[in-house]
């Protein structure tokens, strides 16, 4: 016997902590930690609901597994973007990402989709700190 209010309360707490972490951190990786906490709150809710009797199709467990996998996929993309950002900007501070598109657009290439234009690349690299 287990009373379901406990897992639900834990999920609520985890969600709140995740929200706090998402906003209070400026390091992008630490923001990811907050996101993971919220996702885990969702997982806990799913598991809790799935542990009730007559929950059909083993849905609680299965969807939880799905969410875990989705989280893994997210993390891989997120880390790639974070790494690239670190290389280009030298930091991953979310409170300080400059808005580079204001004013003159950065696209100085003759064809913006042509990423292999050496002149454009040179122009970009110069602008890098």
């Amino acid at each position, binding site marked *: 016997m287990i009373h379901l209010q406990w897992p639900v309360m834990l999920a609520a707490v985890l969600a709140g902590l995740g929200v706090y972490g998402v906003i209070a951190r400026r390091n*992008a990786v630490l923001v990811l930690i907050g996101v993971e906490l919220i996702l885990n709150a969702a997982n806990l809710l799913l598991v809790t*609901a799935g542990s009730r009797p007559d929950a059909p199709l083993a849905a609680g467990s299965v969807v939880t597994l799905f969410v875990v996998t989705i989280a893994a996929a997210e993390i891989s993309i997120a880390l790639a973007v974070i790494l690239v950002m670190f290389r280009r900007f030298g930091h991953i501070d979310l409170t300080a990402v400059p808005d580079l598109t204001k004013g003159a657009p950065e696209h100085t290439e003759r064809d913006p989709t042509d990423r292999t234009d050496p002149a454009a690349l040179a122009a970009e690299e110069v602008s890098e700190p």
Partner: protein
Amino acid sequence: MTGLAIDVVTLLPALIPLAGVLVVLVADLVVPRLRGLPYAVAAVASLGAAGAAIPGVAAGAGTVRTTFCLSAGWFSPGGGSFSYTPGEASPYTSAMAASECLWRAGALGSSLQLGAGLAAAVCLALAWPVARARPAESTREPIEAILFLTALTGTVVVAASRDIGTWLVALELATLPVIALVALTGTRAALAGAMQLLVTSLVSFALLAVGAALWFLATGAPFFSPDAALAAGQVPAGTVAAAAPAPSVALLSLSLVLVLAGLGFKLSLVPFHAWTPTAYAGSTPAVATFLATVSKIGALAALLVLVQALSGLGTPGLLAVAVLSAVTMTLGNVMALRQDDVVRLLAWSTVAQAGWVILPLVSISALGQRSAGIYLLTYVAATLVAFAVVARTVQEVGARGRGMAAYAGLWLRSPWRAGALALALTSLAGLPPGVIGLVGKIVAFRPVIVEGWVWLALVAAGNAVLGVAVYLRWLRPVLNPSEAETGSAPVEPAAAGQAGPSAVLAGRRLAITVALVASVLVLLAVSIQPQLLLGLFGT
């Protein structure tokens, strides 16, 4: 165990893009030096997906194409003895689940799939590379094509999904590739946009997952079905205060608003919109177009899945939707008024239009859902044309094509393109000759009036006026070069020649032109005969 009935034909809208992914990969192995090939394959696959959705559209409002249907006895109900009292049991029973399907595409869903397929094809044409031999180490083209295709797959699937699992996976499938696409543009601006898109989407998805979990908790059903909502909404037997809504209803509404918030980021609703201008402005026109069209279709499709499940409860509407809608369209229009970069203007216009898209959803009814779908597709058609014009101009004059000054006197230089732009902008503004925009606005208004949201109708009417100002501000220099903002010399279209021999650019120019012409034709057709679009939804 009987087999799960799988109807491949019904699944084709999702399978064709996936097959396209495989073909792109194989083709890249065989002929890696043809830069245009992945885009061509992907465009064909997108059109194929659109074509495969047509039977669902043509079937009319009543019919629903289903597959992956469960049947009684397929699953074993949880065994064992449980110690629960009847009132506390999960109200959703296995018997109810027996009638569910994991793929349910009605006329509405099929129409959205059709729109997504066509829009994706246009985006792929806009992304067409410069026909130059590609450096050996570059893998950009096939990957971009694959990302476009998988995002399209996610959009198509989410429109037909019915269960929490598919819904969540498909949503993520529609979102993650787009983030990669934005980041792939590679410039600092693009990375700034990608980072903002990334963190917003991650947080939104996490909250969305919480919302989905709450739905499961409230109904006990892994399906977004009206049965489940009804079962949860029933007042438990024995409760005296029968008039009070069941506590589950509050939970359901929390679940709906969490989902709304989670999807609001994809739709660019106002508190969740901050990424929109940055990401649009940072990415190439093709990716921005994709963000503005296919992504929105996916988001609305996902939202409609939940809304149509709730429509069984007979609730008249949600204040939260009304507030979001009003705030969104107001801020979007106000900010759009101040943009001089046309891509940013279109980004803010997307925000404003998103407010219009969810406006009809204040009425959680079939009428509201249909109206939202119709409005979204009108917006998508007009936005495709506008972005195609921008892409053509950028291709011609380079980055200056993003400034409004580049469009001064376009009417004199290129009357056809200016005409297309005028049609698109008037459609977005809801003015003739963009009749379809007007029709869409009226359609979106109807549920608001029916439900009697007076203040919301007033706000929307004010925004309709504001929107006219937004788009006419762009249109004015197009038609009247003397009114162009001073300080910028007229753009001479000779810049294209510098990039190399014009033959090199021919393939890209041709692709963009084809996309532009095709989207203009669609917009023109629905403007002349709005019934074509309205008929999609079986009205």
